[in-house]
């Protein structure tokens, strides 16, 4: 009996020792050199994994930061606060991130859109868009079921009277809404000044056709083009804007006022 106890203890201890040694060896062989700097940087980042910095998640951005391959002002979700913290850790001077925000290129809310039918299907934009364009005549306009609102990780989009509105103060320009919109109405632009104006329409039909389906659609009259000398230009029946050059525009109010369908609006 004494013998059994002794053998039990010895054999189990032997087994334990054997596996401990194996584990120790494997641990040494497969050791990962995790940079403490990466961990520190990742702790500062918001960990939303929104991808606005251009990397798949915060961890990869932190790795790139540690290697000093990217500048610390790429985190749009964290804004200035995070940029400052990163610069502090890395010991470099911070540059201000440019303010960017998403813009909805449609200005027709539910009261302005002309309806062709009643849509009772699944209440998402992508479903309505696939069902012969939902219930509105305009093939380009906002459907108002809020796919962008649900895609926004920050709650910066509301649907006001059937039209998506992006709050530029909350918007971090991650661009998730732009991918979510089946009609491609949302673009991310540099907000250069408080006087930022944009064309709230995406309709590529001829002016007369646009007028039939929407009271606030761009009819490609070209007035804005004449008033701004190159910043606005009409192409493919739609007024387009070189948003980077907007700062050089002096007669912003005049452009907004003279647009016959009032589709050029302030942010």
């Amino acid at each position: 009996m004494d013998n059994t106890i002794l053998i039990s203890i010895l054999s189990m201890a032997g087994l334990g020792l054997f596996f401990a040694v194996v584990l120790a060896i494997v641990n040494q062989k497969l050791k990962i050199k995790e940079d403490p700097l990466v961990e520190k940087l990742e702790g500062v980042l918001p960990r939303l994994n929104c991808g606005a910095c251009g990397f798949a998640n915060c961890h990869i951005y932190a790795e790139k930061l540690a290697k000093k391959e990217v500048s610390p002002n790429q985190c749009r979700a964290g804004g200035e606060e995070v940029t400052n913290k990163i610069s502090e850790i890395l010991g470099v001077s911070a540059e201000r991130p440019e303010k960017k925000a998403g813009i909805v290129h449609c200005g027709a809310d539910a009261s302005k859109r002309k309806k062709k039918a009643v849509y009772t299907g699944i209440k998402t934009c992508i479903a309505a868009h696939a069902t012969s364009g939902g219930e509105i005549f305009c093939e380009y306009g906002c459907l108002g079921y809020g796919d962008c609102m649900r895609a926004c990780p920050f709650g910066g989009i509301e649907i006001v009277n059937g039209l998506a509105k992006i709050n530029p103060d909350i918007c971090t320009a991650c661009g998730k809404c732009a991918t979510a919109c089946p009609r491609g109405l949302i673009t991310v632009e540099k907000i250069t000044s408080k006087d930022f104006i944009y064309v709230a329409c995406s309709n590529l039909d001829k002016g007369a056709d646009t007028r039939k389906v929407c009271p606030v659609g761009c009819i490609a009259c070209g007035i804005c083009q004449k008033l701004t000398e190159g910043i606005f230009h009409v192409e493919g029946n739609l007024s387009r804007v070189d948003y980077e050059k907007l700062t050089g525009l002096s007669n912003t109010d005049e452009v907004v006022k003279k647009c016959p369908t009032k589709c050029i609006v302030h942010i």
Partner: protein
Amino acid sequence: MVNLVLIFLAASITHNIVLTYFLGVCPFIGVSKKIEQAVGMGLATTFVMTVAAIVTWLIYHFILIRFGLPFLQYVSFIIVIASLVQIVEMFIRKFSPPLYRALGIYLPLITTNCAILGLTLFMVLRDYDFFESVVFGLGSGAGFTLALIIMAGIREELECCDIPKPLEGAGITLIIAGILALTFMGFSGLISN
């Protein structure tokens, strides 16, 4: 040879470790949300099962039986499984960090996965020889992976379904697991073990 094929088929289909013996239900429910993760978890578990079958067979026959200590099988088997899982975890962390992050807590939980301890104990109970044990380990792993992938496939489809509110999440998953187990009972007459 025929015997080995039968053991493999029995372990993976007719006597599926998850859907017939209801072992390893925790990872079965926990890591079956996406097929990708299910495959990763299934392969990791299969690997641990096969190696555990080999090592525990050797230990049982060359240490426990020889010294007359078969009552220590639980303790020694748990040591083997825990160590193996540690090794697999280090391996995955080194070579596939995304899988490591996706499996999360379920990877260390393979340690306490009753499917693996169950497998080693069945092996002893049924008096398998060495090759039979290896095939049994492989078969059980394949069965576990199969169950996980089927479940993940159903749950991916389920994302688009209108599920009654009280049943969302674990509720509907357990119901599906029950129905899956019922369907696997249909195989039960194929091979007598």
